[in-house]
């Protein structure tokens, strides 16, 4: 897999197409594994998508007593294998982001697998495929680095220039452009 998932929270428009699309993945049995939440609806309509970050040393897999959560060679953290999962729900408590879900009927955990049947062929996962606002993207590492640089660059465009009061919201301190 030569691509990575790239999320830009502020772009999220809260349409939840990613949730609907997640259900469409062949291996997902019509259940969604990602989340979209309001930051605080009373204050603003800002929403944000949340999905598995496929940690390098994932807490969910580490706390699994049955060793049911496998990690592929590309680093994708899969759902608990049906044969091995004992339904203890350790993974749902262990994950610091609250990602794994639990199916009480079937007594097993399920989570984002980055649509492994797609992503292993470098085809975008369903959520990143459909996201209408590009809040979720499946892109090359180099493209991601360019995008990160652009974000900072953008803040220099006239009209969005940071003022003395809020400049640190725009530019990381080490960037040094606005120091006196």
């Amino acid at each position, binding site marked *: 897999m030569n691509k990575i998932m790239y999320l830009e929270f*502020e*772009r999220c*428009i*809260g*349409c*939840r*197409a990613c*949730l*609907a*699309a997640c*259900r*469409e993945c*062949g291996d997902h049995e019509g259940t969604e594994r990602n989340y979209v939440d309001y930051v605080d*609806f*009373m*204050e*603003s*309509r*800002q*929403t944000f998508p949340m999905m598995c970050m496929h940690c390098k040393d994932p807490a969910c897999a580490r706390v699994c007593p049955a060793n049911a959560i496998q990690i592929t060679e590309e680093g994708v953290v899969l759902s608990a294998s049906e044969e091995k999962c004992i339904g203890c729900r350790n993974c749902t408590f262990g994950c610091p982001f609250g990602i794994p879900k639990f199916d009480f009927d079937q007594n097993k955990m399920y989570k984002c697998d980055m649509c492994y*049947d*797609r992503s292993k*062929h*470098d*085809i*975008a996962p*369903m959520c990143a*495929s*459909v*996201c*209408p*606002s*590009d809040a979720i993207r499946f892109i090359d590492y180099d493209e991601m680095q360019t995008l990160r640089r*652009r974000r900072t660059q*953008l803040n220099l*465009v*006239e*009209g*969005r220039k940071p003022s003395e009061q809020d400049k640190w919201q725009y530019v990381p301190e080490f960037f040094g452009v606005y120091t006196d």
Partner: protein
Amino acid sequence: MSDYVVKEGTKNLQRAGEKLITTHCSYCGMQCGMHIRVSEKTGKIKGVEPRYDWPVTLGKLCPKGVTAYQQIDHPDRIKRPLIKKNGAFVESSWEEALHVIKDNVTRLQQESGPDAMSVFGGVSMTNEKCYLVGKYARAVLGTRFIDYNGRFCMSSAAGGFLKTFGMDRGSTLPWTELEHSDCFLMAGSNTAECHPTSIQMFWKARDRGASMIVIDPRETPTARIADVHLDLLPGTDSALANGLLHLIIKEGYVDEAYVEERCANFEELKAQTALFTPAYTSKITGVSEEKIIRAAHLYGRAQKSVVMFARGAEQQSKGVDNVTLYSALALLRGQIGKFASGVATFTGQGNGQGGREHGQKSDLLPGYRKITDPEAVKHISGVWGIEPEAMPKPGVSAFEMFDEIQNGAIRGMHVICSNPAVSAPNVEYVWDSLKKLDFLVVNDFFLSETAEFADVVLPAVSWAEDEGTTTNLEGRVIRIRKAVEPLHESKPDWQILKEIAQVLGKGYLFPYEKAEDIFNEFRLATKGGKADYYGITYERIDRENGVFWPCPSLDHPGTPTVFKGRFETPDGKAVLPSVPWQEPGEVPSEEFPLRLTTGRVVYHYLSGNQTRRIDFLRDQCPYPYVEMHPALASRYGIQDKEMAEITTPRSSMTVEVKLTKATREDILFIPYHWGKELSVNKLTNACLDPTSRMPEFKVCAAKIRRITKKEGVSHE
């Protein structure tokens, strides 16, 4: 013939035992590209696969689009014709249903003349069907009463464009150019919820530093990302647009050479807008002077800008005026007919653009020809094979048809692809009218609220069970493909109309074997008209990623950008408006002190007859609600999630309260996708625009009252 169209190098996931059928979404005017997954063995629909190489949407879909395929093999589908016997629907045969239709139509027309029958069309169907609905009404039934649900959707945009430019194409530029624009001024469009797949273009442009000005009473997900959000009071668009025009002129942002060469009426506009100083504009609209000035500078300085609007500005009794004024902003800046700049309306229905060009409107014939023009009548009569004298005269607009029922002129109605029992304003009046009809036929694939009033319901097919074309919001004509054969005993609308024509003895007018036969006839019908489709063929659409009308000949490349050299008015000049301020049809009073506005949510499409049946979409938004500012709620002692009763001079309804500070402090908002007691259109005002006959859905006067627990109203 391959039904899977894909560009070289594009990877789709192709599962074993499945084929992909390339088509577009069934819902809004974006017409997002998609492939439908079909099992090769059983022929059943399996799901959806993104169409990454469709240039307009690049595989993106909203939640409606992702789940659209779930309509097709849905348990609620109407399987066989239904005939109402003793007040209840009974499944029957096609033969019997057609017989009942023949008897009743013949009886009513013998008793009260051909105009006793009427046709209420819709534009969430292909060009082929829309064209045929017009021909069916005029050539088969011979009635002058035909109109369509676009009156509640696009008619103000159409009216405004015709008045200003002399031609009505929803967008003067292709959507793929939007990413190169420098500024977007968007009025009354919650793009992020209503046309979500457009947002990617705005982000791309913003990544280059483009700015965005959003005009909306609520801080919608679209307004949230704007550089300036002009949070105007509903119904004050014309004042705000006049105020912006005033500043564009005053600050010297007018492209003098362009206006001199290509626009008429500039002095009148200048005189009229002189009054609209920021202070005066601010007083009417409730937007701070500072924001109006900032917006004018942002817009005025942009090299390439696009003015966009949607139902928020159009569904008002001054909808046409609003459209002409916003369009004037683009004209003064010399933006129309150039790269990455222009004017666009967000077409609501899937084929809102195509459907209004082909003769479903009470005064139009195919190709955007006027029915009052004898030459047009002669041309169309020739294509249809009828005598020009047999062509009926213009009828009345959609909502006025219900008046005609009330006063007895219309006794029978055939509703095709529409649900006015939810989507019309003041629906209690509409319900009463539908009850008064002697005979009502409805074509639909789910039993809509309108169909419940019917005497005969004919099972139509979903969009994926027929071939055809639609015209998306850019004016691009595209292909819809058949993924499965018609389910149960349902039939495509064109075939239903053909069979009715046959039993009425006019079968010779409908000699079609397949949808493409209709397309070829209608190419001829549009030939030489303003919306000229003559040069477009099914094969060209596949090869060229769709073709933009006007396209008058087979070797014509189509017209992605219109009005490059001249406008379509008689003298080739765009007509600038001069519009004085005028209040909406209903303003707050002592009894009704608040303004109520209505709109949409991302999970539902129009009257909700399709989307309310899809599990995912219904779960996300099962009921309507009233959205208001906590400061307003506090005045009435209302808390979040409590129930409240909203009353307007017409009726009242009870809904749950949703509080957010992301809205004005003096308005109520209710989404409209539900029927019966959950329909906010019970409350809306049927005050019509004088030109477009568009009802004023977007503003009426209302009051609110907290419902105490004791009264015990709840949706649960």
